[in-house]
């Protein structure tokens, strides 16, 4: 597999084509839930994502919805992330965020840790992206929006 094919894994191309969670859902708050929204711009290209998160009173992610414009890597990444974090509790989300950042710093080597890679599931498909420094920000855009929207929801403070 060429490094280009390592970057554009089939999982990524599929998520870019059929994204999960795309289309913003109204945040008319469910009783006791916390909700937050974030808008993030990738300054190097001007691409953007707007993401909303809904957190249960118990501190787990009830739902993520988003709207965005960007390259296949950014769109696929936010889509994969959405599937991954839905239902997860906030500690788990923080762990996944940390793992995904580590993956992006791995320069194509991956995490070399089966447990961690199992946890990341489809998101390990982004290993190839980490060989392209200019594209790492693409893959991280959605994760930045998730973190920020959680912070804005107030959920991080209570957890």
């Amino acid at each position: 597999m060429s490094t280009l094919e390592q970057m554009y894994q089939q999982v990524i191309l599929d998520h870019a084509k059929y994204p999960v969670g795309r289309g913003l859902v109204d945040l008319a708050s469910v009783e006791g839930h916390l909700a937050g929204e974030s808008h993030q711009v990738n300054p190097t290209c001007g691409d953007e994502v707007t993401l909303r998160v809904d957190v249960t009173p118990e501190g787990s992610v009830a739902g993520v919805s988003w709207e965005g414009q960007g390259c296949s890597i950014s769109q696929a990444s936010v889509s994969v992330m959405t599937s991954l974090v839905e239902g997860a509790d906030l500690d788990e989300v923080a762990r996944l965020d940390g793992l995904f950042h580590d993956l992006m710093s791995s320069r194509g080597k991956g995490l070399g840790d089966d447990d961690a890679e199992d946890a990341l599931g489809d998101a390990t498909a982004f290993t190839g992206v980490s060989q392209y420094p200019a594209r790492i920000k693409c893959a991280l855009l959605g994760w930045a929006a998730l973190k920020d929207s959680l912070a804005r929801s107030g959920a991080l403070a209570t957890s």
Partner: protein
Amino acid sequence: MTTTATVRPGDPALQAAESGSLSTTELAAVRADFPLLERTVRGGKPLVYLDSAATSQKPQVVLDTEVDFYEQRNAAVHRGAHQLAEEATEAFEQARAAVAAFVGADEGEIVWQPGATAAINVVAYAFSNATLGRGGEAAARFRLAPGDEIVVTEAEHHANLVPWQELAARTGAVLRWIPVADDGRLDLSGLDSIVTERTRVLAFGHVSNVTGAIAPVATLVAAARRVGALTVLDACQSVPNMPVDLHELGVDFAAFSGHKMLGPTGVGALYGRRELLEAMPPTVTGGSMVEVVTMEATTYAPPPQRFEAGTQMVAQAVGMGCAAEYLGELGMAGVARHETELAAEMLKIADIPGVRVIGPLDTADRLAVVSFVVDGVHAHDVGQVLDDKGIAVRVGHHCAQPLHRRFGVAATARASASVYTTVEEVVAFREALAGVRAFFGAE
């Protein structure tokens, strides 16, 4: 200065180029001057560098000239009692003369700057400093009053837009702009209602770094003159790729960068008509631009020194002078013809299904800078697939967000040429581009 250039003035091949374009042998000779072009990328693929509008590659003679400066005559200029300082000063001023001659200006009208962006900012800050009372009587021409207008175009590079927005914000002047038509050229239908008695500055790009369109300079200069507005030409994309004679164009100011015209990074030039430079207050202040300094007050040196505060980018200026000589020896008329051929080749991408070119589709009044979008594939993904084949194009908004917004796109991919670019490279680019949609299953 040009001690190792393969192509030399008076070369019969070059004389031919004066009437036609560059021949295959000439082009091969030119390419041999550029060490970076021998590089391979992405696992041994030959590099096809189509990103010259961002920055050009450098001929060996420019690199050698710069190194020779450092190894033989590096010293602070304009002030030494020692031999190195004399030699450094001479090299520095000869470079100024070379750049001036290359763009049809007088020596005293060329101010060294770190780049075109800095050069445009110098003019914008001259207006705001004058408005704050700096520069005395002489600077009256640069003083803005409420209701005064600054005109730019919707096609500008951020370098020729944001400094004017900021000037407007600092002074209360109003920013207006000439819109862009669907074909990517300036829409001059409303010119007379945009450039009016209230207009104090008209700033516009000579050649768009997105569409490649050449602006109708004569028309714009005439409109500005009619109302007494000063003109500022962003000549970044024209100076490296076509003959430019600033006196003939009749603009008041112009800015261009060394790194786009085969010269080093970190150097550029501001051109200003002598009389205007004399009247302008400085922007950056410090050493070497002063006459008498007391703790209380400072008087300024005459131009160009007034606008050259601090130790200058001497080695880079010398390199830029050498680059100007190199291009001058090639002959800019031939270079421009060569690039017109390349533009024609590039524009054939419009025939690839799903590819849309942003900008003029014909080769009249345009250079070999072609931006495009691919249906269903983001520009960055397009660029990545081309890169994998060794083809370097630029992706993004190319520092022209308003122009991209005008065409309803956030980003484009852009192929651009320089004197060393070949038709074969453009063909390789076209072929690679034809396969992009399939790669992403977008067909």
